[in-house]
């Protein structure tokens, strides 16, 4: 070793192994695998299956699961196995589209508010608070009624447009903090350009804090779609989604056909659980960076 190090001397690192308690926890492999399977299934199965999920075969209505109809048929004679996958496609699309939209709005509003002068910031944040205090399901139903007959795009638009407020508040607080943080000043001092600062400092810090909420928004959007369709205020019966499948519950229960409700319900609940698990993991790994001051 260089004798120049003798200047300051060297104290060995106390313990070599990383402390256990701070680990982000084990990866949610099961949840991730399940979600990947669902997404793949929803993308591929509707292309591969020969049965049309929308075709009603009234000679085969409310059939129990068997060799031909794996998950049975519903009270209108539609094949549930085919409906699960094409319905999942609709439900997941709405989940992702609505979240993408709400995230874009949230980042834009939050960044503007974070960079704006004090009065504009206060104005934007008060408006956000007001919007946040109105039950979003009510707003969704009203907006949807104004837009007319629901389809995937309009429902995503409405759900996305009502779900950005809480993320926007987090974004705004983060931007305010990061803007004045010393490590950004330090990076600028050493010659880091805007792009470097965005990529190495802002994005990691900022994404970590909103990732959890964004994932939870996916869950919220899927739930909102199901709720609306279940109540009959969402997608019409002939557009198959998990929510609209559940809206047949009443018929199904009087007909004693448990599979019509239970199977789409199971898929919905399992997907929501997997998304939650993923979100929890993201939150735990984001919290690893808490200071020990």
């Amino acid at each position, binding site marked *: 070793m260089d004798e120049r190090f003798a200047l300051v001397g060297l104290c060995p690192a106390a313990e070599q192994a990383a402390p256990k308690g701070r680990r982000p926890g084990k990866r949610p492999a099961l949840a991730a695998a399940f979600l990947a399977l669902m997404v793949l299934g929803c993308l591929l199965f509707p292309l591969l299956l020969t049965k049309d999920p929308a075709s009603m075969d009234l000679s085969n209505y409310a059939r129990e699961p068997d060799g031909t109809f794996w998950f049975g048929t519903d009270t209108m004679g539609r094949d549930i196995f085919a409906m699960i996958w094409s319905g999942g496609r609709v439900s997941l699309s709405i989940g992702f589209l609505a979240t993408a939209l709400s995230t874009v709005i949230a980042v834009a509003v939050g960044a503007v508010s974070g960079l704006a002068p004090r009065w504009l910031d206060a104005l934007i944040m008060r408006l956000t608070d007001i919007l946040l205090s109105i039950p979003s399901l009510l707003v969704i139903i009203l907006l949807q009624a104004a837009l007319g007959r629901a389809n995937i795009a309009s429902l995503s638009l409405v759900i996305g447009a009502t779900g950005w407020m809480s993320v926007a508040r987090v974004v705004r607080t983060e931007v305010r903090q990061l803007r004045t943080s010393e490590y950004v000043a330090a990076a600028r001092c050493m010659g880091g350009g805007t792009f470097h600062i965005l990529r190495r400092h802002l994005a990691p810090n900022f994404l970590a804090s909103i990732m959890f909420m964004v994932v939870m928004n996916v869950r919220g959007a899927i739930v909102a779609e199901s709720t609306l369709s279940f109540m009959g205020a969402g997608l019409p019966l002939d557009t198959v989604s998990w929510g609209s499948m559940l809206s047949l519950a009443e018929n199904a229960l009087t007909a004693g056909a448990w599979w019509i409700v239970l199977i789409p319900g199971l898929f919905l609940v399992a997907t929501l659980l997997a998304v939650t698990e993923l979100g929890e993991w993201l939150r735990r790994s984001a919290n*690893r960076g808490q200071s020990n001051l």
Partner: protein
Amino acid sequence: MCETLLDVRGLCHSFPLGAGRYLRAVDGVSFRIRKGEIFGLVGESGSGKSTVARCVMNILRPQAGSILYRGVDVCDPAQFRANRRMLQTERQIIFQDSSSSLDQRMKVADIIAEPLAVNHIVPPRGSLRAEAAFQLRYVGMDPAYLDRYPPELSGGQRQRVAIARALTMEPSLLVADEPIAALDVSIQAQIINLFRHLQAEHGFTFLFIAHDLAVVRYLCDRVGVLYRGKLVEMAPTKELFDRPLHPYTKALLSAIPIPDPRRERARTRFHFDEAAFDRTGGFVQVSPEHFVLGGKEAEP
């Protein structure tokens, strides 16, 4: 040894307090730092030391005055742009608070190598990681810390990571804002020796900000005393400690405890009357190297 590296002239900076009021944090500060010199800036908390450092590093834009580094006015946007790379590679700062000046989501190895990566400099020791390990050793830390994150380090270790980051660029001017205040006494001594070594062997120039006068006395060649944003006295270290002229400097120096108990008890504390502080006076030269604020008090 006589070439001026940094020339600060009439620096003023105010912070808006809202409602049209301003806080004059730095008020007409002028000093020069020669190449290879360690210039100390002392003063009580809130006297504007960090603000001077931030202006020198272009983090804050002063309202008045100029800062010349190698003859380049760093406050002038056109001149700054033309010399950007030189200014950003040759000047480095060690921040006062290392818990906020290090990105919590970066590993120690990436933090230390960041200046090299940003400036696309080929690391002299092979890889960026080897370079980071070398600098970490240099400040007395085991390279095993390379894969840790700042929140997992102690305050003193974090401060040393911040020092290591500043050293990777081998800067010509190192602005050190109370770099050792968070360290324990033995590490403090080691870091101070490291600074002396860097000055003697590698010709580093320091703007060393401190409130520990014993450290300043040992380390610095010249010292400036800052009080409420005004530079009240500036002199070579020995001269300042032997023959302080401004009443505030006298009060500051008389507050240093003396290790000998008998002399400590006999020591007279000099009290400085804040109300009597006259900020309007000019900077008077009492000897070739010794300047003091306000002519009248300058009489010995």
